[in-house]
């Protein structure tokens, strides 16, 4: 599995499609924290809301990095779809978690309000939850669940856009609501659990659809 993860990660980084979501993430993070971003946990709300669509976008990039033909060769070499889709999910989650860590550290360095270690951990948990939710949504609609990239983009875009107005109905809303009130609640951890379940579900659906 480690060699498969390494191969898929190398393939993603050889391509240049990962640059677009990464640059959007870095650019908006720069804008969010260019001045006083507010109380420690409030400041995390904006970057958490940003990480959700960026992680979904990055997950689609990872899932579609190999074309259909090369993916077929990889599936045969690795011994089945489940191993390849699990490895692709691990790559997407690893990249998303790296962005979550960066987003949690960024305001600690740039925000004029001091952060305690506990607040940093809450921010990291919140970003992790949003990253997992984004990866889950991205993988749920990417190949092999949806074959055409156009349908993937439309479905992911629709789900991501619809998530925000639904507010506290969604796990993303639980996280943003808690951070917006400058507080921590267990719902943040539950959101992370839902995100992890979504990623696992996307792998299962992908294996069944392949």
């Amino acid at each position: 599995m480690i060699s498969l993860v390494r191969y898929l990660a190398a393939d993603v980084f050889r391509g240049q499609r990962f640059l677009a979501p990464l640059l959007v993430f870095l650019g908006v993070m720069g804008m969010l924290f260019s001045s006083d971003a507010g109380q420690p946990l409030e400041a995390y709300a904006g970057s958490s809301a940003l990480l959700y669509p960026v992680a979904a976008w990055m997950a689609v990039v990872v899932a579609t990095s190999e074309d259909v033909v090369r993916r077929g060769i990889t599936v045969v070499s690795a011994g089945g779809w489940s191993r390849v889709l699990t490895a692709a999910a691990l790559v997407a989650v690893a990249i998303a978690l790296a962005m979550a860590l960066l987003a949690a550290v960024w305001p600690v360095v740039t925000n004029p309000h001091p952060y305690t270690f506990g607040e940093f951990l809450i921010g990291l948990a919140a970003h992790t939850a949003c990253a997992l939710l984004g990866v889950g949504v991205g993988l749920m609609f990417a190949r092999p669940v949806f074959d055409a990239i156009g349908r993937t983009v439309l479905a992911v875009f629709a789900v991501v856009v619809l998530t925000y107005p639904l507010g506290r109905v969604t796990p993303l809303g639980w996280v943003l609501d808690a951070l917006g009130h400058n507080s921590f609640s267990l719902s943040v951890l539950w959101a992370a659990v839902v995100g992890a379940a979504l990623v696992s579900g996307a792998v299962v659906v992908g294996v069944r659809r392949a």
Partner: protein
Amino acid sequence: MDGYLDGVLLDQVSKRYGRGPWVLRDLTLEVSGLVVLTGANGTGKSTLLKIAAGVLRPTSGRVVRPASVGYVPERFPSDVKMSASSYLAHMGRIRCAAAGDVLERLGFVGSLTAPMAELSKGNAQKVALAQAFLAADLLVLDEPWTGLDPAASAELVSLLEGRTALVSDHEGHLASATRVDLAGGHVTIELSRVVGLEALEALEGVWSVLSRGSSARVVVAPDRSDHVLAEALRLGCSVRSVR
């Protein structure tokens, strides 16, 4: 499903894409040694090879294959950013297999460190073959001679000697191999005033039934067309055409 010695068994395998026509119907094939698939375009050779390799699942039927399978698709992609050496190293690590001398024997010419997108068609095909030959048990090769020069073609024949492989080939490179012909084509029967659609669909040899109002187009295996025609008439359908 794995673990069938070093060959592959396809048992009563059928395949259709979505609700489209049947590409393969009730095909049983046991591969041990060298087996060459022949047949006209569109007879399902590539689909059968994908099922044998494990890229596709059959719609129905059972496939038993060994643990280590190597697969070469009909067309190796031409826009791969990774270099040939990196790609083969990764594939070797995934399989826990040491790189062989296949590239050298096939006469690979060009840069192993440049992106594969910069390789010629023939050299890219040699990389595709090299990754497949990392497999220990079964090779599934879809028109593997595509793009190869005569010397490399002859060397590929030599490399396949003694291996268990399922190969599609239009050009007769493997004269001594067992041949399986997927050809046979199909017969299309146009019916009107159709009754008993379910009974027609259930008949042996019927690959697809497309109904439009009271009409239907029935695609049938050639050797069963007479039987299906007789049954359609017995059910009270009118036959508009057979072709």
